[in-house]
């Protein structure tokens, strides 16, 4: 599974992209975020405030109860500030 981090979440985690082997019992975006937060202090810091975290699965915005599977591209980022 490919995980992409953007903006200040990327700087906290220390990388913009990582490939992870998701445990089989992780079925939703919310559970995935909990699991990712335990990977390093940087991950924990990036995911400390879930209200400012947005998630896209395969380039589409999804809620925390959305299903995830092994081949997905998961992007995790703060609220957008373009325009």
């Amino acid at each position, binding site marked *: 599974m490919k995980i992409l981090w953007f903006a200040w979440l990327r700087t906290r985690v220390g990388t913009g992209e990582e490939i992870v082997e998701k445990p089989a019992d992780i079925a939703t975006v919310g559970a995935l975020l909990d699991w990712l937060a335990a990977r390093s202090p940087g991950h924990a810091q990036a995911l400390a405030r879930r209200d400012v975290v947005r998630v896209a699965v395969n380039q*589409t915005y999804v809620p925390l109860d959305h299903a995830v599977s092994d081949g997905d591209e998961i992007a995790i980022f703060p609220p957008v500030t373009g325009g």
Partner: protein
Amino acid sequence: MAIRVQRETFDVGAELASLTAGRSDIGAVTSFVGLVRDMAGDAAIGAMTLEHYPGMTEKQLAEIEAEAHRRWPLQATLIVHRYGRMEPGEPIVLCAAASAHREAAFAACHFLIDWLKTRAPFWKLEDTAAGPQWVSAKASDDEAARRWEQDR
């Protein structure tokens, strides 16, 4: 319908001219241009760097544009959004809408920029005297976008 995501700057006049070139069914063109300012609140900004999510950015912009065409009778639309480093005074984004009459063109252009600001995956990093600072999302932008939900 056209969207472009690019590092280089753009010429607003040339973009609008090409939108209507060779057509005589367009009676109104409206445009919005967003520029880099030299101040954010009371802090001076030296430059700005825009990060984006290649792939999802184009997909979101295309969806926003398609939604505008579902809501208003439009002959043409254009969204150009830059990424990378920009100096104060440089253009960041152009939204344009062309229609037979002005009402649809005004409304669609306003909609394009309001939805873009809350949906397209771009993030601004400002160079300040205290170092680089990520721009926070504004509640007023969410409010502006919500207005178009109520109008559906």
